């Protein structure tokens, strides 16, 4: 009799178990969603709920690595709140502002700043007194000494500087010029938005520029991969190269004579790189560019523009030559170039860049700490070592000898990127790192329409000096 009943109900059992299984999946998904997906989704710019916390919490402070205040909320006597930025325009882009949709770290760490990890008893006490809880503080990796030096060195020129610690990925400085005073954002909002110098744009990670000769490092990397015999590469530079009806010259028509691959980098020899570019396999070249993050979403807490490589399979010889020397359709940001310099400095391995070092509650206890994480290798250890050696030559006898003979060693690559027909004015680039054998800091400097050569190199030199003094 029992068996009969079981037979009769077999299909019912199957249906019941199927639906119960379906619901277990649904519940599992909800748990997964809250554990792993919710945080990302909540940081969406469309989310208006974040500010709900501000009803109960006084927004926490943002501090530099020595816990100097970069942003804090001051509660006035009448209970109203003012967000104050003691360094004025120094940190305008990276720290950002907290009204008008928020930007920079103010936007990225909004939830942390509006979360209070005060002790349970303190919270209850405040509740009884109808007082707001105090939000947590975000301690950043930013170094005010380097930030100030880079800021001053750029002066009135438009441009950006990014300084990274290659061994950890800590971002020590991120400057964008022109800058503005975040204390005045509310008063000047209209004006800031209509100015034609895009003052609100963080040029460090949102600006898009031709990388110029700094890209020759990527071209050299691709050449090494396609030609294992690269140490025996030689080219006779006569100061210009003619290819059918195209003629490309070295800077100032200087003839560099017989150059090998390292010399080509050191002198930034355009003709040699045009020669290299003509022989490269576009598909492989594109892969190498992708491996060093062209066309990829760049790691980091602040949203960065994607760089583009722009060389397609059906590209003409002219395009190939231009791309090989960093002109063409390539676009990149100073931040991206800083990551490439940091990866070369760190033996090819890129450490995930980060700005938030740790979180403190209002009484100063550490709540959470970010540890350095590897993002992955952008190139092999051997390849990084060769590029490092070539970049040392740039300082020793190449285009950046002004950085030689200092108390610390430097490796780097200069760049001049043409952006208009006015050959007098070019974007000036420098990427590199110090203490070559065991690199301390990596830097990327870009100056828009700089006059003369070496403008970016000088800024880098000033920052390096500030670091070692």
């Amino acid at each position, binding site marked *: *009799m029992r068996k009969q009943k079981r037979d009769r*109900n*077999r*299909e*019912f*059992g199957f*249906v*019941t178990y199927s*639906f*119960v299984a*379906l*619901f277990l*999946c*649904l*519940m599992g*998904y*909800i*748990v997964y*969603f*809250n554990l792993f*997906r*919710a*945080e990302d*989704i*909540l940081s*969406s710019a*469309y*989310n*208006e*709920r974040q500010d*709900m916390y501000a009803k*109960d919490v006084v927004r926490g402070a943002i501090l530099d690595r020595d816990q100097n205040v970069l942003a804090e909320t001051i509660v006035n006597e009448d209970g109203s709140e003012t967000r104050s930025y003691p360094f004025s325009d120094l940190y305008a882009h990276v720290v950002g502002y907290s009204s008008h949709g928020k930007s920079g770290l103010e936007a990225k760490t909004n939830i942390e700043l509006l979360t209070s990890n005060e002790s349970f008893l303190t919270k*209850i006490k405040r*509740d*009884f007194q*109808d007082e707001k809880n105090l939000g947590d503080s975000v301690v950043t990796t930013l170094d005010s000494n380097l930030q100030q030096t880079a800021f001053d060195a750029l002066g009135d020129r438009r441009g950006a500087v990014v300084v990274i610690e290659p061994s950890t990925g800590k971002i020590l400085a991120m400057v964008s010029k022109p800058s503005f005073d975040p204390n005045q954002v509310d008063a000047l909002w209209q004006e800031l938005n209509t100015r034609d110098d895009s003052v609100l744009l963080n040029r460090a990670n949102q600006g898009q520029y031709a990388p110029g000769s700094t890209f020759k490092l990527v071209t050299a990397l691709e050449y090494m991969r396609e030609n294992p015999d690269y140490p025996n590469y030689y080219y006779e530079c006569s100061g210009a190269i003619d290819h059918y009806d195209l003629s490309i010259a070295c800077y100032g028509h200087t003839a560099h004579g017989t150059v090998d691959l390292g010399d080509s980098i050191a002198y930034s020899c355009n003709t040699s790189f045009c020669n290299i570019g003509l022989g490269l396999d576009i598909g492989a070249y594109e892969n190498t560019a992708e491996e060093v993050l062209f066309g990829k979403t760049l790691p980091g807490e602040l949203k960065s523009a994607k760089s583009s490589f722009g060389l397609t399979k059906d590209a003409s010889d002219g395009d190939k030559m231009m791309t090989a020397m960093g002109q063409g359709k390539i676009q990149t940001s100073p931040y991206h170039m800083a990551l490439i310099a940091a990866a070369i400095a760190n033996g090819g391995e890129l450490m995930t860049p980060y700005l938030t070092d740790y979180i403190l509650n209002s009484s100063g206890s550490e709540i959470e700490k970010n540890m350095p994480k590897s993002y992955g290798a952008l190139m092999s250890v051997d390849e990084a070592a060769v590029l490092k050696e070539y970049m040392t030559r740039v300082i020793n006898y190449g285009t950046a000898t002004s950085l030689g003979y200092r108390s610390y060693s430097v490796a780097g690559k200069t760049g001049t990127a043409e952006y208009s027909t006015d050959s007098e004015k070019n974007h000036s680039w420098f990427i590199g790192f110090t203490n070559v054998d065991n690199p301390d800091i990596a830097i990327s400097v870009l100056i828009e329409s700089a006059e003369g050569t070496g403008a970016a190199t000088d800024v880098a030199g000033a920052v390096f000096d500030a670091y070692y003094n």
Partner: protein
Amino acid sequence: MTHLIIEISKYIIILLIIMYTYSCFAVYGYQDPERKTAMLRSQNVLMFLMHLIAFIVLYLNKLEMKIVLFWAMQVGLFLATILLYSIFYPKVSRLVINNMCMLLCIGLIMLTRLDYDKAFKQFVIAAAAIGISLFVPVIIRKIKILSELRVFYGAVGIISLGLVALLGRISYGAKLGFTIAGISIQPSEVVKVIFVFFVASSFKKSLEFKNIVITTAVAALHVLILVASTDLGAALIIFVVYITMLYVATKKPLYLLAGTGAGALAAVIAYNLFGHIKVRVNAWRDPFASYDTGGYQVAQSLFALGTGSWLGVGLTRGQPETIPVAAEDFIFSAIAEELGLVFALCLILICVSVYIMFLNIAMELRGMFYRLIALGLGTCYIFQVFLTIGGVTKFIPSTGVTLPLVSYGGSSLLSTLIMFGIIQGLYILREDEEETIEKQKKLRRKESNPASGRRARH
């Protein structure tokens, strides 16, 4: 100070719902009828406590007397429901009654918080619908020709759906119903119940291939009309209910496979045919990329879920009003935001417990017709729960159906309460059957005549 009370109430409410949910499943483990009854009674205590605490918070938030009155009215309704059922139908399943009240209670708490006027309307409809549903078990028990009316069921279903498709009022891109004298009626809600009766009576009549083809054709017509009026949720529910009933009635897994295959094919065709469906699928794939073209609702819902996290932000402390149709299709997200995901997961488990009880009743019944009715209604209920919760959590594309008994909506409330009434009627039938068997057994024992060995087959 209010903030503190809300914080504390949050934890108590979660604790109460966990205890309630636990008892929903633990009750099956008790053999002793007295302990079982005690446990079922304690469920009511937990519900009334939760209801009280929630309304204290709602009152502190608004400080309006009408909230207190409304609380008293709701307590009256729940008490009356529990008492009337136990007086008129002592054999009724108490667990189903308890869960029905609990789901209504959660819905009314959230609706009062979202929109007092809607909550009051919901309350009035709930009271009327419970009144009506009290008669349903009698009808099921006494009227024996219910299983003979298949032509009637089929005709009513097709005609009312057809009318909506032709004349219907458009809401959120789907033609759902008409408004008569200020009351909007969504026939598809009631048709779901009638459809289950149609299929059950048809299969009871015959399981020959010819009859299966005819029944399938009528079922397909239901689905087609619903798809044409772009009521995707109802179309899916009818489809799944039919496949399930067909499989259980015929006991042929082949039908299950063929049905699922045909359904998948139809889904692909419908996707390419209707812009309305495309929009929802795109919103599901990436609600943020399609934020301005349909992803808005799901994105807001996900913000609510994430903000609420495990414990919720506390009743009245969230921003569920930023979720579109928060009182209807997206009420689950509003609940999760303020009362927390732990509460929301318990809510899911209560729905699952309702379903298991429905299927339990189905398995105990003997007549094919009644078995299929319980199965069909149970599947109808649980699949709708799955569609709505899956939709608002982005587990599946959102189909715009309501959470039965919890969401605001008269037609849905009425049809679900009738559905519960029918199940109760079937439960009583089962108890009747058992009684008859017991009597027969006793009778046989009295006769104690082994020679007349005609044994009951059950």
